[in-house]
């Protein structure tokens, strides 16, 4: 059970399951595309990256 809650509230999971689709869907809505990459890949890269930073550095915005 503790493992489940740790996963739900993990910044990495939040980055992948929420920020990544949010970035991808926002790009699609705005008609944006980067280097012909699928927007979900871009979203996963940015969202996952932010999640990793939040997890290991303890901050979503670098400064802490």
């Amino acid at each position, binding site marked *: 059970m503790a493992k489940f809650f740790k996963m*739900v*509230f993990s910044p990495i999971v939040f980055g992948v*399951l929420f920020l990544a*689709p949010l970035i991808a869907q926002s790009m699609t809505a705005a008609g944006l595309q980067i280097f012909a990459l699928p927007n979900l890949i871009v979203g996963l890269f940015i969202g996952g990256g932010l999640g990793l930073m*939040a997890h290991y*550095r*303890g901050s979503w915005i670098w400064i*802490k």
Partner: protein
Amino acid sequence: MDQVTQAVNWDEVSAEQLDAMERKIAAKYIKKFPLGIIIWGFANTLIWLALWPLVILGLLPIWAAFPIAVVNVCAAYLPSHDAQHSIIAREGHKLRWLNELLGHVSLIPFAQSFRYLRFTHFEHHAHTNNPDLDPDFDVHAENRKVYFRNALMRKQPINATRKDLYSAALERVGKSAVAVDAIAIRTVYTLVLFVAACSGYAIEAALLWWLPLHIADIYIPYYLSWKPHHPGTDQGRYQDTEAFKSTFGNLVSSGMQYHVVHHLYPRIPLMHTPAAFREMRPILLRRGCDLRGM
């Protein structure tokens, strides 16, 4: 209306008489039934819930729904706050169920647990501005700029210490079990965001709940905790809370200009604190309250 403080020669009033007058005014307002806040609490949640199908079915554009959702989430706490203090109905009253229902339902947009907030809030009242015991003490900041900076920093995983302050408060009063409510509600909130985002509704979830909640999380403590208790150094019945004049008026400041009355008499309904304040004002001045020109 019967004004308790009308035609009083203040120079001849003893401390005991001041006390009696203050209590008489408070009793008058405590008796009033807070119908307005009940309608507010249920209507606010209903409007916020309605935004989801309206946006998803394309009946309301998301740009129009977003500001409504921000207002809904920011307005979600106060009806529950009245319910926390059992203002609608005390334990044993036939309308007690309504008090508790309002407390739970009004907090849905704010994704918080009624019981968790109630018991930690009681500790805030019991130990206002006490650095060791006030669970809201971490909001204190020397000025507005520092408040907003701290609020942003508190959102970072490394600084998320509020839950520890709240857990400590709950442990002191033997209510640690209610933390389960908070964890369950936050889990549901997070899972809703994940499911919505992965189903193609990430923008809707972000603008109807995620972003409004972040805004409310900064707005609500600003007016309910920081502003009326600033600078947060004084303790004591007439010293720990101040009145203030908000640039944005009483509505935008969530009625907190008169928060001093709430800390003296927590069972006066929010919507009646301005009238109670105006009537109590001469007494509060003699008690040494800082009314900041109000």
